[in-house]
């Protein structure tokens, strides 16, 4: 990796004013831990018409300054068992001090990813895994679809580290989508933000695009034992915890031009 790229790959979620990057030369391998996360935040719902958004961040382990598997999950719901509008953009705000280190993580070209899927990418470009639930309102039915998600490093965009979120659903529709994300500094009380652009997920002619109703992704890992499902990259829990816990937030923008915001706090260890 070029030195410039290596620098841009190391980001620490400190307030932009402080700006110092925390080196974390870790290459960690770990299982997908989302379901086992022991430190979960009390979700907060955001009002946006009848749409309720909630975010559920967690660290495993949650010791200050420790390498961790960071799981970020969200849920979008509307009243009366409806389907939320398709999500187009999401900005996830991470607490100051959270370290995300992509040192030595090779990038996978988006074209290659689109052609061959995650298997066509360098194994160490995989930095996280997760799952999503999608729904489409076709005819009179709300039809759900489960999808698997992979987070991979892709070439930097505008000098900022970039990720691709590759999601693949199998049934009832075999469908895949690639969302792209960039990491950049954020203002207090946050330190880093991840801006995700989500493409339209087509279903069938005349019927709406699919909507994401829930999503969970685990980045980073703990332990060093290589495993088949190892993920590269490292996330570290901030060394200090503000009163009230680590703050998280997410801004959601939908295809119908509505927006919603959800916040949550992970309690201090």
């Amino acid at each position, binding site marked *: 990796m070029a030195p410039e790229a290596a620098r841009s790959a190391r980001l620490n979620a400190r307030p932009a004013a402080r700006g110092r990057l925390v080196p974390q030369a870790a290459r960690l391998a770990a299982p997908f831990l989302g379901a086992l996360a022991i430190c979960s935040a009390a979700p907060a719902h955001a009002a946006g018409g009848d749409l309720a958004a909630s975010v559920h961040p967690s660290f495993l382990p949650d010791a200050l300054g420790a390498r961790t598997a960071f799981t970020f999950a969200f849920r979008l719901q509307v009243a009366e068992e409806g389907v939320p509008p398709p999500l187009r953009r999401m900005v996830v705000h991470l607490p100051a001090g959270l370290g995300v280190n992509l040192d030595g993580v090779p990038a996978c070209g988006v074209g290659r990813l689109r052609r061959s899927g995650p298997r066509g990418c360098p194994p160490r470009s995989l930095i996280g895994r997760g799952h999503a639930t999608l729904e489409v309102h*076709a*005819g*009179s039915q709300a039809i759900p679809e489960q999808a698997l998600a992979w987070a991979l490093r892709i070439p930097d965009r505008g000098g900022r580290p970039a990720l691709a979120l590759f999601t693949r659903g*199998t*049934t*009832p*529709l*075999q469908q895949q989508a690639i969302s792209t994300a960039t990491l950049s500094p954020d203002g207090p009380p946050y330190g880093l933000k991840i801006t995700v652009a989500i493409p339209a997920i087509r279903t*069938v002619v*005349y019927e709406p695009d699919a909507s994401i109703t829930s999503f969970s992704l685990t980045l980073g890992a703990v332990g060093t034992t290589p495993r088949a499902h190892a993920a590269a990259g490292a996330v570290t829990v901030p060394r200090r915890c503000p009163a009230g816990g680590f703050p998280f937030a997410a801004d959601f923008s939908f295809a119908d031009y509505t927006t919603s915001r959800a916040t949550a706090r992970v309690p201090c260890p």
Partner: protein
Amino acid sequence: MTAGARWVVAVLCAAFLLWAAPAGAEETVSITEAGFSPDKLGVPTNAFGRATITSTAGPVPSPIRHVNVYGPAGVTLDLRGSGVCNKESLERLGTQACPANSRAGFGGGQGIYMIGKELVEEEYTIDFFLADNRPGHVSLLVYLTGSKPVSIEMVFPPAPVIQGPKPYGLGFSVEVPEIKVLPEASNASAKSAFLTLGAHNVAYYRMVHGKRKLFHVKGIILPKSCPRGGWPVASQFSFEDGSTVMAKRTVPCPRR
């Protein structure tokens, strides 16, 4: 002619026109869009189409009683891996009663009816399920729903897949029952309709010898060739007033 006499003639003319209009009413059906997605020769596809229905008599076309939809010659069906839905269960429990692998398509449109002198428009949706998936016996269940301003749910009689007249191929034939959303309302008519049928990219898990196996349903398969000028498709609508209209359209051949 005196002013009074002119007034009488005008009223008589108006009355005659009002009386004569229904007798001379004519429904017009236009297929505004038709196609296949993807449109590649010999591949599983989704067939889609959209039509509008108008009447010379006014804003409310005569209610539809029967529809035959004809696809191009050479289209085949491969329903291996699909399931079927039971009509009685669909009537009793709604779409929840139908297995996911019995879904055959979706549709909808704009309906219209009169309550007293008031025109009421209502959006409706259609869900298509397979009632029978055996080759040569294939039929569809049509489940119609509307919710605003009046809630309605209705299952049509099974719609068999049929062989259309030349130059058409497979199609299906739908008997449309009287649709009365309220006792005091006129029979509902359709101003527009759209549908998508097929199983492109559709797959379902099934248990085979105790193991979960993914089955790909092919559904509608396009012909391996396309006649010069494109694939002819058509819809034949029969209305409550006894009239029948055949609407035709040509789907351009896929680009090579």
